C-alpha cells in the first residue's frame, strides 16, 4: 500500500485528516464571523454589501475557496463517520453501569453537534447563498437579505441554537486537534485548553449577536 493509503487506513491518519480539515473550517468560521459582524455597522448596509460584492468579484477566488471548504467538509464528515462506526464496533456490549470522570459533555457529543451543524449549514446555504429557503431573497443584497431573513423568529432561533452547538464542537475540537496532530506539552497544553474554551465562547457570542440583535430590532 502507498504511504497515503496507509495513512488513510489508520485511525491516527484519519484523525489527523479530521484535525487538518477542522483547522480549515475553524479558519473559515473566524473569517466568516469577522465579515458578518459588519452588519452591526449602522450605515444602512453599505459596508456589508460592499463586502458581499468584494467576495463575488473574483470567480477564481470565490470558487477556489468554496472548493477547499467543500473538500474539507466532505473529508471531515467522511472520516468522522468512519471512525465513529469503528468506535461503536469496538464496544459491542455496553456497560451495565458506567461513570464518566474526565470526558466533557462537549467531547462526548461531537457526533451529535457535528451532524446538526452540517444540517444547519445546508439550511444556511439555502437561506443566504441560494435563497431557496428565504422569502424575499435578492442576490448580492446582503444587508436586506440578512435583516428580512433573521427577523423571522424561528430562523433566528435556529441560528442561535446552531451557534451554541458550534461552540461546544470547537470547545473540544479546538484543543483536540493539536493532540491529534501530535502536539502536546506540559506547559502549553493546559493553556491551549483554556484558550480553546475562550475562543469557543467568543465565537458563539459573536455569531449569536447577529440574529439576536436583528430579531430584537436593534439592527435594521
Amino acid at each position: 500500500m502507498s504511504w497515503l493509503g496507509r495513512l488513510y487506513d489508520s485511525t491516527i491518519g484519519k484523525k489527523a485528516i479530521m484535525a487538518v480539515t477542522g483547522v480549515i473550517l475553524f479558519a473559515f468560521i473566524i473569517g466568516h464571523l469577522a465579515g458578518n459582524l459588519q452588519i452591526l455597522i449602522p450605515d444602512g448596509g453599505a459596508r456589508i454589501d460592499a463586502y458581499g460584492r468584494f467576495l463575488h468579484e473574483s470567480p477564481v477566488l470565490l470558487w477556489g475557496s468554496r472548493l477547499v471548504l467543500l473538500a474539507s467538509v466532505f473529508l471531515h464528515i467522511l472520516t468522522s463517520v468512519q471512525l465513529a462506526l469503528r468506535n461503536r464496533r469496538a464496544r459491542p456490549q455496553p456497560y451495565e453501569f458506567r461513570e464518566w470522570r474526565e470526558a466533557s459533555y462537549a467531547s462526548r457529543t461531537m457526533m451529535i453537534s457535528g451532524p446538526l451543524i452540517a444540517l444547519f449549514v445546508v439550511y444556511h446555504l439555502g437561506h443566504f447563498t441560494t435563497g431557496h429557503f428565504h422569502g424575499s431573497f435578492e442576490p448580492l443584497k446582503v444587508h436586506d437579505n440578512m435583516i428580512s431573513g433573521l427577523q423571522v423568529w424561528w430562523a433566528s432561533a435556529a441560528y442561535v441554537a446552531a451557534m451554541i452547538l458550534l461552540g461546544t464542537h470547537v470547545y473540544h475540537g479546538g484543543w483536540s486537534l493539536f493532540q491529534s496532530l501530535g502536539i502536546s506539552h506540559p506547559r502549553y497544553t493546559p493553556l491551549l485548553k483554556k484558550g480553546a474554551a475562550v475562543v469557543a465562547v467568543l465565537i458563539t457570542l459573536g455569531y449569536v449577536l447577529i440574529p439576536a440583535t436583528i430579531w430584537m430590532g436593534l439592527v435594521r
Partner: protein
Amino acid sequence: MRLTLHVWRQKGPKDPGRIVTYDMPDVNPDMSFLEALDVLNERLIQRGEDPIAFDHDCREGICGACGMVINGIPHGPRRATTACQLHLRTFKDGDEIWVEPWRARAFPTIKDLVVDRSAFDRIIAAGGFVSVPTGSAPDGNALPVPKKVADLAMDAAQCIGCGACVASCPNGSAMLFVAAKVSHLGLLPQGRPERRDRARKMVEQMDREGFGACTNTGECEAACPKEIRLEFIARMNRDFLRGTFAERPEAE
C-alpha cells in the same frame, strides 16, 4: 461492614451473561477488593456454586493481571490504584457495588470477569521491542541519557498493560497502552532508531485488532492505575504520522 455486590456472571464466551447480586454482610474494611471476592468465592464453593472467575497475580499493583470495572470505573474509584490494591475502606458501609469485566470487542470475555487480552501481546509482538543484540549491560555513562528524558521514559514504562485504558475509553481505544510502549522505547537511545517504524507497526496492529480511535476525552488517563498521560498519545501520533507521512522510500 456490609456491601452488596452486583457481579457480572458469564459461564463462557458464548453465554450472554447477567448480573447476579451477592450480599456480603460482614466484610473487613481492610481487605482488598480481590480478598473480598476470595471470601465470596469460598462461600460460593461451600454452597456448591461456581466461584467468580477473575484474573490476578501479584496482588501488589505491578503485574497488570487484575482488572475489573468497579462502579463504572476500571479498577474502581481510587485514582492510580489497581483493583488488587483497592481496599474496602474506600467504600461506605451499605454501599452497592457493580462489578463487570473490561468490555471491548478486542477483549472477548472468557468467563465472568476474565477477558482475553492477547490482543495486547500481538501489538507488542508487532513492534514493542528493540532489535539489537542484548549481551551485557553497557558501561556506565557510555550512552548518556539526560535525566529528564530518563524520567519521561520511566513514566511511560510504568504501564503494566492491564487494559484499563481500553475499558474506560468511550471508543474502546487502546491508544494509551500503545502510546506508553511507543514512548518508553522511543525515548531511550537503544530504541530511538526504530521509533517511527515501531509506531507504525504497533498502530497498524492495534487497528487490526479492532480497537477504537481516540477522541481525546481523557477517560483513559483518569482510569490508568499507573498515571500514563495523554501527552504520550500525542507523542505516538507524532511518531506515527512522521513514520507514514515523511518516511523515506526504501532503497532499491
